[in-house]
């Protein structure tokens, strides 16, 4: 017993000493550290490793599950992150709240490689605070086994034969935006009458809807529980890889485009290193490796000729410029957001 006790005391003393040492030397010597706060699986691991070696730095990569979580952490202050990835609308919010650092373009010469569409997104025209990193368009994914005629319009979702087979995203702005576009309005309308009309239209779609589900939309399409639905282009590519019966189309009326960006939170300690990392990501060779690994659309025009044939020919990733031209960003609707939410609640509770 005595032995056991002295062993325990010894072990505890050792661990305490280690704790103290670990706490004080957490900066890992003199190596510079880049702290990234992002979505899970948003970078190819070998790309991060390459950056670490090339610049002799250490990259810490932490993950969040929603924009709002990330906002809460940054707002609380003292978060210690150098690079974050807010989505389009969140960039606008964070600029307004003064939570983003202005980017020093001199450190990001590769910015010239970006596709011109993304030089002037409405949430941050001129890329003052943010640069588009991953992006996609919400279109229609459908299973060719059940949907015989390829859809061309959003109104195809309303067909009677798809009763209980249509899946929609679980997001008020996306779904109401879709109905608004179908009726020829802007997806970010602030006109109450237009919104009312879109809502009434959506109510007639409800009998067809099997679920409002963003997290499991891929599973439901792959398992063929859902035949047709509103799906992000990147997710469509993922579904297609698992179930080749699924195809994807951007309807003729247009669609909603979204993006996750690269941005630097106010007060970041390693701003310059973060800018170097952004620049690194936009090196054509690096971005080819990166985007083919994560399976999203590359906003880097200089990289296009270097992509593999398989990636280039995938129309869910390499979207048609004409489709991109028809797509519309969601922009802040101010106080009308409450109306969107009210209609949304009514729509979902009316099921």
């Amino acid at each position, binding site marked *: 017993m005595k032995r056991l006790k002295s062993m325990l005391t010894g072990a505890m003393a050792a661990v*305490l000493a280690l704790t103290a040492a670990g*706490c004080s030397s957490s900066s890992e010597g003199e190596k510079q550290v880049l702290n990234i706060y992002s979505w899970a699986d948003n970078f190819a691991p070998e790309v991060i490793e390459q950056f670490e070696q090339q610049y002799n730095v250490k990259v*810490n*990569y932490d*993950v969040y599950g929603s924009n709002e979580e990330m906002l809460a952490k940054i707002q609380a202050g003292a*978060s210690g992150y150098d690079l974050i990835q807010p989505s389009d609308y969140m960039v606008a919010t964070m600029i307004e709240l003064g939570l983003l650092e202005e980017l020093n373009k001199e450190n990001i010469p590769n910015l010239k490689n970006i596709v011109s569409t993304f030089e002037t997104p409405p949430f941050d025209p001129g890329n003052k605070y943010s640069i588009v990193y991953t992006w996609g368009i919400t279109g229609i994914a459908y299973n060719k086994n059940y949907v015989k005629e390829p859809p061309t319009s959003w109104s195809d979702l309303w067909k009677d034969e798809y009763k209980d087979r249509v899946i929609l995203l679980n997001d008020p702005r996306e779904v109401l935006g879709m109905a608004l576009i179908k009726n020829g309005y802007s997806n970010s309308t602030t006109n109450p009458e237009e919104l009312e009309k879109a809502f009434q239209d959506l109510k007639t779609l409800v009998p067809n809807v099997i679920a409002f589900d963003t*997290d499991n939309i*891929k599973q439901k399409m792959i398992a063929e529980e859902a035949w047709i639905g509103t799906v992000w282009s990147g997710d469509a590519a993922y579904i297609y890889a*698992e179930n080749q019966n699924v195809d994807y189309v951007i309807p003729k009326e247009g669609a909603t485009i979204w993006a996750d960006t690269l941005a630097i939170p106010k007060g970041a300690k390693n701003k310059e290193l973060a800018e170097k990392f952004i620049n690194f990501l936009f090196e054509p060779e690096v971005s080819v490796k990166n985007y083919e690994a994560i399976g999203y659309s590359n906003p880097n025009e200089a990289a296009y000729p270097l992509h593999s044939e398989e990636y280039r020919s995938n129309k869910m990733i390499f979207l048609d410029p004409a489709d991109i031209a028809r797509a519309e960003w969601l922009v802040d609707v101010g106080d009308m957001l409450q109306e969107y939410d009210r209609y949304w609640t009514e729509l979902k509770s009316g099921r």
Partner: protein
Amino acid sequence: MKDWRKKSLSSFSWLMLVFLYLPIAILILYSFNEARINAVWSGFTFKWYVNLFGNRQVQEALFNSLWVALCSSVLATVLGTAASLAMKHYSLRWQNIINGLIYLPIVIPDIMMGLSLLILFSMAQFELGKTTLILAHTTFSIPFVMVIISARLADMGKELEEAAQDLGATAWNTIRYVTLPLITPGIVAAFLMAFTLSLDDFIISFFVAGPNSTTLPLYIYGMVKRGVSPEVNALSALMIACTVILVIVAEFLQRKDSKTVI
């Protein structure tokens, strides 16, 4: 009649067990599924487990989890044991109130605890990271440690310590040669309990984690938002296995302990 009653009771217990463990069993089962998506079963494989161990982010999260659990449970055990000894040997002025206040954190909603710690750290300009995680985990583990150690101390009674002092032992020697050896199994059980709690915690960690301190539960949560992959299942299955083993060891030590003393 009696037979019927017994049968229905036992089938009811089985139903309860199924209700409790079926979701976990399915989760573990699908971690061996060949397909990348949970929707369909398409064959048995270990590849998700192999993938996990090749993934640097998982390795880092695992290291963070273990490190935070180790540091916080050691701190909590030392502090909690000392506090329990003090509470036993001195009667303080508002003993009952103090007792209540010490155990209160067990029932305070985690979300309140996480939020209050986050506010505290950011007011004190304390940078979020592993240190804040360790402090937070130590905080919520101490009451659990104290519950276990106090129960052990109460079981032990005062007689042995008094006898030692009668025979001329100093206060320190009494603690060292009588009290501590007697409660050692309780200390180990408390340590394992604190370790498990720290390993499993999500909500409080969610608030106080910072750069380079993503723990396994936080990482799993981030992965789920990108769609539940069999890797998530595999990781969860491993965490469940670790937890179960730790709990069994802690329980075993506590049992053995009460048998030898009484």
